[in-house]
């Protein structure tokens, strides 16, 4: 696939069907050879705009019940991003207690406990949401729905098996290493750990896609839909609390034990790349969930 064809894939399929050939001809007529960066970025921005419009239009075309479900699924996607970010946070904050004196430990300890407790409650909320959808899932399966969802589920299951195998390998290796070797001292272990983290992220993403692909095909009764909407709202609130608590933990650590982040003293030096990536993912997950909650609220009002 050429660079131009790849850029055209930034647009939704329906849009490409209508304007794709014309736009490709325009690009051929206007730019000989390699596309200038400005034209490429204009195409990417245009593609994102068309996707946003497409999603909005698809959302608006749904009945109110469908919009509640779609809103809850947006929250679920945001939560999945938060789970991946949460794994990053767990790694970053490993053994943070040992860097603190008894006195300076109070605020980070409380903030960390809040993150952990709310993460547990959030996990339970997701489980309750899934359990509520089980009767509708069984109805889908009994009416011959398995072939429709099989590809997504099988892909996620295979990714889970690979991740489980890698987890065992990582854990076995980790037991033979010292703390210093586990934290960047051994290049081979660091590479395997990174690969494992990537696998975890892919597995979470694939399960999220599988759940969304399945949930879209379920017929949920109104009370279940309303309950899913309420659970999604509670989940978003939990994500907000976790984000605030994580920020408090980071600020307290940066102030009491800046050396924990490996940099020089000072708040600025406490921004490590891992922390930045984790924070970005958390904020993106929360923003996505907030969009979902707004959609749910609008749809419930219209029900």
């Amino acid at each position, binding site marked *: 696939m050429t660079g131009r064809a790849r850029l055209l894939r930034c647009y939704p399929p329906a849009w490409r069907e209508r304007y794709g*050939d*014309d736009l490709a001809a*325009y690009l051929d007529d*206007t730019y000989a050879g390699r596309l200038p960066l400005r034209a490429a970025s*204009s195409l990417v921005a*245009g593609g994102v*705009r068309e996707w946003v419009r497409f999603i909005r239009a698809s959302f608006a075309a749904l009945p109110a019940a469908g919009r509640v479900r779609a809103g809850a699924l947006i929250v679920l996607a945001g939560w999945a991003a938060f789970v991946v970010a949460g794994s990053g946070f767990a790694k970053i904050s490993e053994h943070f207690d040992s860097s603190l004196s008894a006195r300076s430990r109070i605020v980070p300890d409380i903030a960390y406990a809040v993150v952990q407790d709310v993460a547990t409650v959030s996990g339970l909320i997701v489980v309750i949401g899934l359990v509520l959808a089980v009767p509708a899932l069984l109805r889908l399966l009994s009416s011959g729905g398995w072939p429709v969802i099989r590809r997504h589920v099988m892909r996620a299951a295979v990714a889970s098996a690979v991740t489980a195998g890698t987890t065992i390998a990582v854990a076995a290796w980790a037991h033979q290493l010292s703390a210093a070797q586990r934290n960047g001292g051994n290049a081979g272990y660091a590479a395997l750990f990174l690969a494992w983290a990537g696998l975890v992220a892919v597995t979470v993403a694939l399960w999220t896609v599988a759940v969304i692909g399945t949930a879209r095909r379920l017929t949920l009764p109104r009370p279940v839909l309303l309950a899913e909407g309420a659970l999604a709202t509670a989940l978003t609130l939990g994500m907000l609390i976790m984000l605030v608590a994580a920020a408090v933990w980071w600020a307290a650590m940066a102030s009491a034990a800046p050396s924990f982040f490996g940099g020089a003293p000072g708040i600025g030096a406490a921004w490590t790349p891992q922390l930045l990536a984790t924070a970005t993912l958390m904020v993106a997950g929360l923003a996505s969930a907030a969009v979902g909650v707004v959609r749910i609220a609008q749809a419930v009002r219209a029900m």
Partner: protein
Amino acid sequence: MRRPNDPPVLILTSLADGPKHGHALAKDIEQFAGVTLGPGALYGAITRLEERGLIEALPAEDRRRPYRITAAGSTALTAAVAEMRRLADVGAERLARSVTRRRRLA
């Protein structure tokens, strides 16, 4: 469609002269307005204008699809041009008054 350099206004202005495909449109706009539209902005505006029924696509020639302004597009462009002319008139009038005031003060 308020500002004269809005892509929809530029496209309607270009098509008021006759149907054109994407490349000819972009060249024409560059010539009469000095504005270079990126491919994303050009086709985004074409999409919007077509959805609103202000332009329509003609049968494709090779892969290139010419577009032409519709009656609704002509009406919208007439309104936009009138609005811009009104703003230009107000601006010119106020500028003239301020020049007169400055001359009096000098």
